[in-house]
Every structure is written in structure tokens, then in C-alpha cells.
């Protein structure tokens, strides 16, 4: 170690600058601190040597070349995460679809939302159908109302669009959509 110049204290307590040397190289000192370090280094051979060696180490570190990531590492991670993310979306869709189906099953079929090619028809609270086209009410259970549903093909105007059929069609569509989505995700 060099002798400390007692007349020109360069660092805290008049000691060698120590870690102020590195900070000086990094421009992290106040002008006053920097001036004191410079002043000390000018008269202290050991600190001068140390400063040069620190500068060399700093330069070596800063000259380290970039390292390319192995081919496919990043794209592999991105694709895996995106696949996982799509699966999450598909599962959410499945869950949402099930919720819709369950919700529909628990909801009475509304009366006024038939397609334009069908006569208005509703299921009355007594379990009978009101055919708006014919203006008549068909009792499903009375002998005069015809054969119980399912045993005969209904008239075109009386096409069976009860809840089960509606749910079947909806279920098929949801199933198709989900399986298509899962296929796309899996592919």
C-alpha cells in the first residue's frame, strides 16, 4: 500500500479513495469528489495503478460480446406459451358454452322468437300449443288433440321445435365449434 498523504486527504477520513475509484470511472461522483480523487491519484502511485487496473477490468466487462440465444429457444418458448394460451381460451369457451346450455335448459322457451317460415306457436302454461297460424289450441294429451307427440310425424306447421330439439341443435353447433377449435389448437 502507498503512504497516505496526510496533508491532502483524498477520501473520507483522509484515506485512499477505495471504491470511489470505480465510481469515478463510472462518472458517479460529484464534481467535488471527482476532483479530490484526481488530486489523490496524481500523487499516489498505488492508487494510480489500481485505477488503471480497475479501468482495464471495466473495459473487459464492457467489451464482452453479445451472446446469441440458441436457435429456436425463444420461438419455442413463445409458441409453447401461445399454445397454452389458446388452450386456455378454448377451455374458457367450453365452459362458457356449457354455461349457456345449462342456462337454456333452465329457461322456458320464449314464444315470440320463431323463424319467419314458421307460424307463431307457443306452449301454453297448460302444456298445450297455441298455433297462431291456425288460431287454435292443440291439446297434447286429450284424445281429440291428436296422437301424443313422438308417435306421428307432425304437420309442417306443427314442426317439433320443442326445447329438446332446440338444445340438440345448439349442442351440435357448440360441439362442432369446440372440436374445431381444439383441433386447431392441437394442430
Amino acid at each position, binding site marked *: 500500500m502507498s503512504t497516505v498523504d496526510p496533508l491532502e486527504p483524498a477520501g473520507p477520513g483522509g484515506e485512499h479513495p477505495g471504491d470511489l475509484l*470505480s465510481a469515478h470511472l463510472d462518472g458517479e461522483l460529484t464534481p467535488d469528489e471527482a476532483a479530490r480523487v484526481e488530486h489523490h491519484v496524481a500523487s499516489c502511485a498505488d492508487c494510480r495503478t489500481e485505477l488503471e487496473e480497475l479501468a482495464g477490468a471495466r473495459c473487459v466487462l464492457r467489451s464482452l460480446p*453479445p451472446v446469441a440465444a440458441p436457435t429456436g429457444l425463444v420461438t419455442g418458448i413463445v409458441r409453447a406459451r401461445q399454445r397454452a394460451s389458446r388452450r386456455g381460451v378454448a377451455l374458457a369457451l367450453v365452459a362458457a358454452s356449457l354455461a349457456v346450455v345449462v342456462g337454456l335448459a333452465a329457461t322456458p322457451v320464449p314464444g315470440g322468437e320463431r323463424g319467419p317460415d314458421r307460424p307463431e306457436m307457443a306452449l301454453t302454461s297448460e302444456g298445450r300449443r297455441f298455433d297462431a297460424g291456425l288460431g287454435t289450441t292443440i291439446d297434447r294429451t286429450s284424445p281429440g288433440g291428436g296422437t301424443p307427440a313422438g308417435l306421428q310425424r307432425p304437420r309442417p306447421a306443427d314442426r317439433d321445435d320443442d326445447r329438446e330439439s332446440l338444445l340438440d341443435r345448439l349442442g351440435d353447433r357448440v360441439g362442432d365449434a369446440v372440436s374445431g377449435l381444439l383441433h386447431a389448437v392441437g394442430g
Partner: protein
Amino acid sequence: MRVRRTSLRRGGDAPVDDVPSWGEVARRHGDFVYTVAYRLTGDHHDAQDLVQEVLLRVQRGLATYRPGSIEAWLGRITTNAFLDDVRRRRRRPVVALPDDPDQVVPSSPSVDEALAADVLSDDVTGALQALPAEYRATVVLCDVVGLRYEEIADDLGVPVGTVRSRIHRGRALLRTALA
């Protein structure tokens, strides 16, 4: 501007006004993250694991990213993920001098230049690995990522004086190891 050193930042890394998508960040800055990860771990296998962890953290934290130097942000995520891992395991010897030929990474300059750079790089990588993990993280944030002392102190949750001391001692140890 938070980062004053740009040697690793390609294309100037202009301030970003909009939050980029995660996939974009990963693809555009994957090599940068890998470089920092490799400097911290000194091992390609560990670096790959670290990159994976970092990209997951980036995906979770992208909403919190504020326009600025994205590589400074990525550098501190990488360093913190590294230190978290070190603290979790605390079994990795700090004096592991890698002697693995696989660590020679092909680079684009001429073969001779590449070879010289890699030999030097390997020496420095080995010397870096000899540093205590906290010193290494501090030095990498300063000399590889290019952060100011105050930023490093914020990132690591230590006083600026500690940062200064770690950088100084880290460089001094490195100098001794390379002598």
C-alpha cells in the same frame, strides 16, 4: 433515458410509446435477455432456464411496463430472477470455473476474431462466476446492462453505497482472477 450504454441495444432502442406484445418483446430482445442470463449464470443450460423464467415474468408483468428502455427493464427482471434462483438454491459453488468447450459460442466476425473473442470471453465468464452472486449481479447490471448506480440500488433494494462497493470489489476480484 435510463440507459447510457448502448452496446447491446440494437437499432437504438427508441423509447416505446405503446406497450409491445409479449411475443414481440421476446423475439426482438431474446438475444439480449440471453446475453444477460449467460453473463450471470456462466452456463448455457442455466441461461436457457433463466430465459424461460424471465419471459414468463415478462408476460405476467408486461402490463406494468412503462415506456422507457425496455432492455433496462428486461435486464433488471433477468437479474432479479437470477438472484431469486440463487437464493432459492444457494448450493452453487461460487468458484466454479467452467471448462466446457460447448461454451464457445460462434459469432459473426472472422474465425480468428471470433476465436480470440471467445477465448477471452470464456476467461472473463469464468472470472465472473468466481464472484459472489450479488457482486456478479451488480457488476452485470452496471457493465453489461448499463444501468446507473442509483437504478441498480433501486432494482436490488440496497443502498447506493453498497452498489458502489460491490462494483468496486467485483472489478478488483475480476482483475485478480484475470491476472
